[in-house]
């Protein structure tokens, strides 16, 4: 009977789960900035999600539930990795762009600097910031996903944005002018 319900009843949720893949990957990438690791994390999160589908009480919470699993996967990954870095994959990342040089030139400056700045943030701030900015989760949802108080979410977000503002602000011309005036 359990098998039958898996085949019939959850078919809808299962297809939804697959659709989340790109979004999960985007956030996972913003956390670790490693394509292979991000892909693995998403794979693992989806596998765990599928295996524990019966634990999901409210299908409307599928999103925050999945991101919570992703967060747990990343935490587990930290436990087992301990600062290991694969040199092959670093090279892979640098040479594996398949965009045209023009495209890369037009946006790589901003995009790369944003990514570098986000990567420099402490992990806690990085997670809060990306969940809110990329996935548009509410503060309460983020607090639930990361299992921290809402106050912590707000303070981490605040500090994260301050650091990013300091590093990135000269990238956007109109903000640059404002920043100069505000110094005066």
């Amino acid at each position: 009977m359990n098998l039958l319900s898996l085949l019939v009843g959850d078919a809808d949720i299962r297809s939804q789960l697959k659709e989340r893949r790109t979004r999960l990957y985007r956030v996972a990438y913003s956390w670790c900035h490693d394509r292979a690791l991000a892909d693995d994390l998403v794979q693992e999160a989806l596998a765990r999600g599928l295996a524990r589908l019966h634990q999901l009480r409210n299908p409307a919470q599928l999103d925050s539930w999945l991101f919570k699993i992703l967060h747990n996967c990343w935490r587990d990954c930290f436990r087992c990795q301990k600062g290991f870095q694969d040199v092959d994959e670093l090279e892979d990342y640098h040479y594996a762009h398949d965009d045209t040089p023009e495209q890369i030139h037009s946006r790589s400056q901003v995009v790369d600097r944003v990514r570098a700045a986000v990567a420099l943030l402490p992990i806690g701030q990085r997670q809060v910031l990306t969940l809110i900015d990329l996935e548009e989760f509410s503060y309460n949802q983020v607090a639930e996903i990361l299992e921290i108080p809402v106050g912590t979410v707000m303070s981490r977000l605040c500090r994260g944005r301050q650091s990013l503002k300091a590093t990135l602000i000269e990238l956007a011309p109109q903000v640059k002018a404002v920043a100069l005036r505000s110094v005066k």
Partner: protein
Amino acid sequence: MKPEISQEQLNAFIDGELDQTEKDRLFVALDGNPELAQRLGALRAVKEMVNHGYAEPPPAPRSKRPRRFAVPHYLAAGIVLVLGLAMGWMGRGWSSPPRPVQFAQNHAGMLRPISLAGVTADTRKIVLHLDSDQPVKLKTLLDDVDYLLRHQTTQGRPVQVEVIANNYGLDLLRADITPYAARIDDLAQHHANISFVACGQTMHRLTKEGVKVELLPQVRVAPTAIGQIINRLQHGWTYIKV
């Protein structure tokens, strides 16, 4: 007095987390406070930039590198290997190639497709297949037969049992080797609905190898064990491999 607007509140504003009264307060504070407006604009820009930075994350690698979390491939490979070996081992009785003439004769028969579709299963007719000479298996088989026959007498449901032995399993039915001659004799004496069948092909092979095969008097010989089993299955018998 100018109301103090904290950095957290500005963040909450651009993330749409403020309620109506808090928003009111912020708009009042913004009015005539360009410095606050600039701070708000800068935060807004940061949010947009982060969004832009990850709008198109680099595609996930699709290399042949083994996944860190996935089920290891060698496990699957191992299962396939074991399966292949098991099938090869079970089919080793088929190794003696038929002579060309025989093959041609058999061929016409073999072309007939075998299907069990439309066969109604009958759980009261049971084929027990033995192809091993492990003492445990011999004993299990005879115990099973015993149980089946006893069961039918208590329940009043007649059961038809046929024991088919080939390959090493033939030892059970060979008068000079079997440790259970008395027991088989006893079974055959007391029950009319049990039969013992030996594989003719195995006997042929043993004879060719120079072994003299002497069967128990209760045993019937079928041309091949497999043929006999298929025949039984097509008549709705239930097959049990011991």
